[in-house]
Every structure is written in structure tokens, then in C-alpha cells.
């Protein structure tokens, strides 16, 4: 398997290098002679409302600053030279990111935003794989305000909910994180740009799961860890978006949550043996005392004192 992966990887790299040899040595095709930059003032004559909106946004720094090389040509920094469009006034004669593929839109944005704190790793993110362009969430011209994207938690949630309908519906359940109440937003836990963790989860304290940002008492390291928390994450027992079960548990009975894993007879030599033993026989499930494991095993996220999480 390792050999296969190495061959595939080497092949890909070789392909890329071969193509690069063709492309890097050749200058990009020159734009048609008729195409030239006309400047934002020219654009403004017809698109005054857009220009005025842009003026209130951080993107106007492109117009006023020399850093990116687009001073006084901010419109054409994304829309490409506009001389032909200025003459014909035809929408076909100007580059419109709204009609481009998501990848092309992203590359346009990332020309400037590649290393801001969030987009690093975007090429591996779920949004990139699903071809969700930056402009799906960001209003480049700042329509309706000075901001390019919503900052208020309810607005962020509403934006995410337009696509993630099922996830948003989970918050209608009684036991949930407080998103509908406006106390939290989707981006408190997920990084919509990129994350190296599964499900675009944020990281906290360097490389710990994002849940620990608010539940830092569950971080440890504990003297006695509960392996499932570190190996499978909080989602092994909890439904973080919302649940019909108290404590957002994935099952209606606490004992079911625990015993579904803790039912393994010791078979040390088995290659596919599962982690987690079976409770000793005095755990008589017919007694109410043993039907809720957390009555006694109160430190089940990890214990500093007791290997069976009793204290």
C-alpha cells in the first residue's frame, strides 16, 4: 500500500513538473491589444452605487493603497481590464466572478488573502471540495454596509443555515448549544475557510479539539484518561448540534451510551479487538443505582484521582 501511494504521489509530482516545464517557460498570452485598464473612475460613471458601497469597505484600500499595485484600479483588480466593456457596455465584455467556477473565484480572492489567519489550508477544506466560492458568503462590494461578511452571531448563523439546513434544524431540539438564542455562532466551533481537523472543526490551545475552547476543564491531561474522548472526540457520546436527550447525549439512557462500548470480553490476541472492557458483575442493571452509570462514574471525561472515574 505504501509503495502504491509513493508511486501515485511521484507520478503526480512528475506530471505537474512536466506541465510546469511547458507552462513556466512560456509567458502568459498577452491580452488583446484593445484591452486596457480604464480605472475605477470610469467604472464609477455607470456603477456609482457599487463604487459608493465599496468606498465604505476595507476593499477600498486596494483603490487607495499602492501595495498591491492596483491603486485607482480596484474594480479591475478582480474584473480584469475593462476598456472593451467601457466601450460596449456589454456584460459579455467584462470578467464577472459571479459567473466563474468556484475555483477561479477563490484564486482571484486568494491572490491577496492567501495568508490571512483563516484561509490557510483552504484547498483541503470541505467548502473548497464542494466548490463553494468565497463570494458565496462574502459580499465583495460590501452591499448594504461597511462589512464584507456578517459579524453578528445571528447573521452568521442565518448565512450558514441557507445551505446547512439539516444542521440548523438540529438546533430546534430542546438540548442544544445556544445558537438560536444568538449566544453562539457556527464559526465559534467551525472554521468555514479551512481546518486541518475533521468537519472543519476549530482547534484550541494549539492542537486540541475546538470544544475545549469553552469546556477547558475537560482538557486534562488527566492522570486517568477516558480514551474515547481523546481517540474519537466528544461526538462519540454527544450530539453537539442538538439532541432530544439530556446533556445532548446520543442515546436516551446513559447506560446504553456506556455499554454499547463497554461490552468486550478480554481477548488480548485478537487483531480486531475493541477497546473498553465490561463492567464487573456487581453492576446489576435491574437496580436503579446501576442504570445511570454517571451516578457513580462522575468524572468520566477523565479523572485526576481514580482509574474508574469515581472521583
Amino acid at each position, binding site marked *: 500500500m505504501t509503495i502504491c*501511494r509513493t508511486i501515485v504521489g511521484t507520478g*503526480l*509530482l512528475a506530471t*505537474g513538473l512536466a506541465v510546469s516545464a511547458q507552462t*513556466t517557460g512560456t509567458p502568459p498570452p498577452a491580452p488583446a491589444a484593445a484591452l486596457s*485598464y480604464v480605472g475605477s*473612475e470610469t467604472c464609477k460613471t455607470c456603477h456609482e452605487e457599487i463604487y459608493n458601497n465599496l468606498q*465604505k469597505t476595507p476593499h477600498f*484600500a486596494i483603490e487607495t493603497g499602492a*501595495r498591491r499595485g492596483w491603486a*485607482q484600479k480596484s474594480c479591475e*483588480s478582480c474584473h480584469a481590464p475593462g476598456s472593451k466593456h467601457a466601450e460596449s457596455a456589454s456584460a459579455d465584455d467584462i470578467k464577472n466572478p*459571479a459567473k466563474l*467556477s468556484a475555483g477561479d473565484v477563490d484564486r482571484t480572492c486568494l491572490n491577496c488573502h*492567501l*495568508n490571512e489567519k483563516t484561509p*490557510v*489550508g483552504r484547498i483541503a477544506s470541505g467548502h473548497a*471540495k*464542494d*466548490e463553494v466560492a468565497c463570494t458565496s458568503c462574502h459580499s465583495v462590494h460590501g452591499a448594504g454596509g461597511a462589512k464584507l461578511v456578517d*459579524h*453578528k452571531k445571528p447573521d452568521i448563523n442565518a448565512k450558514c*443555515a*441557507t445551505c446547512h*439546513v*439539516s444542521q440548523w434544524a438540529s438546533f*430546534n431540539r*430542546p438540548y442544544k448549544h445556544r445558537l438560536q438564542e444568538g*449566544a453562539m455562532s457556527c464559526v465559534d466551533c467551525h472554521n468555514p475557510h479551512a481546518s*486541518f481537523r475533521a468537519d472543519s472543526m476549530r482547534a484550541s490551545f494549539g*492542537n486540541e479539539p475546538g470544544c475545549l475552547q*469553552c469546556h*477547558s476543564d475537560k482538557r*486534562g491531561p*488527566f*492522570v486517568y*484518561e477516558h480514551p*474515547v474522548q481523546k*481517540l474519537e472526540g466528544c461526538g462519540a457520546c454527544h450530539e453537539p448540534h442538538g439532541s*432530544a436527550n*439530556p*446533556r445532548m447525549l446520543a442515546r436516551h439512557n446513559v447506560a446504553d451510551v456506556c*455499554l*454499547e*462500548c463497554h*461490552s*468486550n470480553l*478480554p481477548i488480548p490476541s485478537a487483531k480486531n*479487538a*475493541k*477497546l473498553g472492557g*465490561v463492567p464487573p458483575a456487581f453492576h446489576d*442493571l435491574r437496580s*436503579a443505582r446501576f442504570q*445511570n452509570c*454517571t*451516578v457513580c462514574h462522575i468524572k468520566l471525561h477523565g479523572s*485526576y484521582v481514580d*482509574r474508574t472515574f469515581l472521583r
Partner: protein
Amino acid sequence: MKLLAILILLLPLGAQEPAKPSQEPDKPAQEPAKPAEQPATTTTAAGEGWIQGSFELGYRWIPNIGGNFNAYRSVVNLGEGPKLLDADFTLIDPSKRLFDRADVHATSWGGDPYNTLRVDVKKDGLYRLTADYRNIAYFNFLPTYADPTLSLGTLLDQNSFDTAIRTTNIQLDILPKKWITPYLGFERNTQFGRGVTVFQTDRNEYPVASLFSDQTNNYRAGVRMELGRYHLTIEQGGTTFKDDQGASDTLTNPGNFTGTFLGQTLPLSRMNELYRVRGDSIYTKALVAANPYSWLSVTGDFIYSKPRTDINYTEASAGTFFLNRILQFYSAGQDVLTGDANQPHTSASVTVELRPLPKLRIVQRWMTDRFHNASNALLAENLVIAGAPFTDQQLANDRLILNYSEEEIDAFYDLTSHITLRGGYRYTWGDADVRAPILTGLSLEPGNLRRHVGIAGFTYRIGQKFRVIADAEGSSSDQTYFRTSLQEYQKAHIRASYDLLTTLRVATDFNLLNNNNPDPSVKLDFSSKVESASVNWTPKWIKGAHLLLDYSRSAVRSNILYLVPQTLSPASSVYRENGHALTAVANVKWVSFGGTLFISSGSRPTRYYQPLARLSVPLNKHVQWNTEWRWYSLNEVFYAFEGFRSNQLITSLRFQR
């Protein structure tokens, strides 16, 4: 100190012009005529004041809360009284001396169970300061959770709490948008409050009062560098942690076991327990992003952290107890534990995107996550047995070791300008060593993970108007860590949205997960299916009208064998849930009405309703009067005693400038 020195050395560089990017964007072939001097980015437009925004002040009445008040507090927890419901304003400093612009947003202040505050202050080219604060009351007292006396008619929760979780997040970016941007960050998370927990002995357990008090501070500093096509972020962080939770009881407490054991009852007469945990961590993080060629993008990260904790624990108790280990009763005990735990943790990933052909994109990703928790603890026990002292000491150590890796390759091909096909393969593998169950007689047991996943999907789009995203993946594996882990599974996901009109958007969403473990001792058969549809309509011909409809149907079906502990005979754990969630809100001019509901059947049938009606009347250009009625109702068929219902009325004035 090294980091500080580097920062100080690098700061002057920020004032220099950045290196010219090796691949400039297309240079203008013809320079435009120089326009007149441009206005500054955030100038105050004519007619706009130095402050703009709104405040909403109001009062909430709660005429009644019927049913279980503690369940109401656990789920809703809103209270009566005057409130600052919302404040959202922007300050613009005309002199631009200290800042150009400050945005402030605050919600739900005045005794509500969740308060938020966000401040965003910036001065172009010099700094940006963002501060985010959140305070969430965390009340949980549900009779159906972990209370063995429920069958006796006692509506308690022996594992309940009434705490608040506060999170603060502050970041200062210096010289934002320059090619080198140093930044400083601080985060604090605290939890404090009280609750009920259980003091456990070998033959009885006693509900006792508990106190929560923990705090984590995270300090970090870093620098982001943009070097043409290469970008680098380096961050150094450190964490401090303290946990001072405790539990106590001063009254005679019979505990959950009210019978006799060897002719004696087992009451607790007093106890006191105190944790004093102190922890710290350092971490180093490096993020890299690069576009060295037009056909190649690379990103990667490396993070190393080393959290550790020191533990001091004391517990003193008196009563009548039984110790299984020596088969004797004892009347008082004192435990003292000192310990420590260390967990070096390394994570790294690299992602490469190749674009060998204009229509082809290949993304290869590799990541690893490795940690090794090593801990030691010394427990000293002093017991009083029949009036004589008895002392014992136990030295223990524990390990949790994980080496996890993942590799994925995906190819994206633009079949047409509207269709992109995707196919890929993911391989995840890992090994873990964890503490073995006592019955095995071993100290550690190994766990292995080997998972091969095939991936396929497509995206179909027509501009921004119509989009379908479909993903599917399937896996077959015989080595997973846990009985419930993803083993032989199939996932599918289809999401579509269509802008029927510029004012009407329809979206649908379908998610499916099937997971099986055919092992005869497990027989896991899990299925989860969610179907959703959404309509968002803003008709132009009715001023101020808007309709939002979201409907979601979910079905969870799970069967798995487990062992009944007292007999070790197999039994089946069955979970079913068929849920319907609906959100419907309509606005017509001054009136809004609708709400949300969730209805489920199956293992825990539940009905949770939150209807609302709202009237918003503009009194003049700057003031709006809002009145809102809400109804909260929770009904659980099997646990009727945990239901509640409540009417609430809020009236408020919104001031806008």
C-alpha cells in the same frame, strides 16, 4: 524571550515596502488618468454622525411557568426584568487619532442566561483589536438524568449543576494588511458555580453539594508574513489552568443504598473533598501556504504542544463505610493524592493541490496526530477501623498513547463549465495503547485502526443560481478502536439550492449514514437519515414581507449487542428516533409570526414548541416599538413530569441613529 526578540527585530521590516511578488497580476497596459485625491477608506460620509447604530431596551414578563421549573431552567432559563436586548453601533473618530472605526455589538444583558459582547476597533494600517466575550449560564437539573431514586418519586438529579461558563477572546493585529503582521492574543475560559455530585464509597454513594471553579488562560503571540507567493505564520502560545472544585456535606446522609449491609446501615455523617489542580502548556505553531507555480499550491501546518498538570487532592469523610479491599467497616477516612500528568502532542499536515491541466485539479493531503500521556499518582489512605488507625499507600501510573495518520487524494475534473466530478481515496491508520480493563490483568491494551475509504461526488452549477453538490463515501474496515466506530459504512450527502427568482430561494439537503459491524459479538446496525427543505422568499410586491420555511425530517435507527454485566449474556441496545423539525417565520410589514417546533417519536418521544408573534411599530424615524410574545413548551411522553410550558411577553424600544 526568543520570540519577543524576533518580533522586535522584525517589526521595523513592516515599515519597509514588501518584496515585489514574483508573479505580478496583469499590469495595466495603459495607465488611467490620475483621479482626484481619493477619500479615505472609512471617512464619515456627509450627513453621517460619529456614532451610528441602535439600542434596544425592553422588559420581559413571564406570567407563568407551568410544569417542571428545573426542566424549564435547564432548557430555556429566561427570566423576568429589564433587559438590554441588543446594542449594535459604530463609532467613527473624525480626527482618526486613536482609531478609525469601532464596531460594538452586545446582546441579552440584564440577567439573561447568555450575554455576548463583541468589539472591533481598527486604525487602518496600524492595528486591529477584536474582543469577544460570552457568558452562558449552564443550568442542568433533569430528573431523568442520573437519578436512581426516580422510581421512588423523587425528582432530583444527582449530577446537576448551576454554573456559568465565560469565554473571552482578544486579539490585537499590529500593522494589519502589511506584508508582516505581528499579533497578540489572549483567551480566558472560566466555569464557576455550584451543583450536586456524588461521593462514592464501595457500598454506597451519597449526593453531596459541589462547587465548580476552574479557569484556563491562553496567551499567544505570532507573526504572519506574506512573501510574494510564500506565506508563513509562526505562533507561540502558552496556557495556564487551575481547577479548584470541591464537594462537601455536613448533615447525616443515608445515600442511595438505604438497606442494611451485614446488619449495618451505611450513612455518611460528614465529608469534605477538594481538588487543587494546576496546569500549564506551551505550544508552537507554524502555518505555511505557498503558490510557487501557477499549477501548484501547498499548505501545511505543524503544531507541538506540551500540556501538563499537577494534582493535589484531599478528601476527609466520616460515617459508616465498608471497604471491599480489606472486607471491613471503617468509621472515618482521609485520602491524600499527589500526581502529575504530561502529554506531549504533535500534529502536522501537508496539503498539495496540483493543477496539471486547466480542467483537472488534484489534491493530496497527509496529516498526523500523535500524543503520549504519561501520568503518576500517589494515593495515601488513612482509615479508622474499629477505633484503630489503618494506613495504606498506592502508587499508580497510567499511559494513553496515540499515533494517528491520514492520507487522502482527490481528483476534481471539470467535465463541462457546469459540472465538476470528484473522486478520491482516503486511508486512515493508527495505533493506540490505553489502560487495560482490570479483568485482563494487563497494564495496557492495544487498539488498531485501518480504514480504506472510497470517495466520489459531483458539483453541478449554473452560475450562482442553481447548484447541486453530491458526495458519497464508503469504507470497509476490520480494525477500529471501538465497537461503535465507523467500520463498514456508507455516507451520502446531496445538497441543492435554486434561486427560482431573485427573491425566492429553495434549498434541499439530504444526509445518509449507514454503519455496520458484523462481528457476531457486536452486530452493530446503525442508520441515520436526514432530509431537509428550505424556502426563503422576499416578495417585492409586498413591502417588508419575508417568508422563511425550513423543514427537516430525521430518522435514526441503531441496534447493537451489549453484555449485561451481571450475567455477561448478550442483549440488544435499541435506539430509534423519528424527528420532524420545522421553522416557519413570516414577516408582513410590522408583524412577524411563526416559530419552531420539534416532534419526535421513538426511544424518547419529545415535543418542543417555540411559537412567537412580534409587532414592530416605528414611532418615528429613530424609535421603533417592539412587542413579542413567545411560548415555550416541552412534553416528553415517557417523562411527563419533566415537561414545562411558559408564556413570555417582551416589550421594547429600539433607538436608531
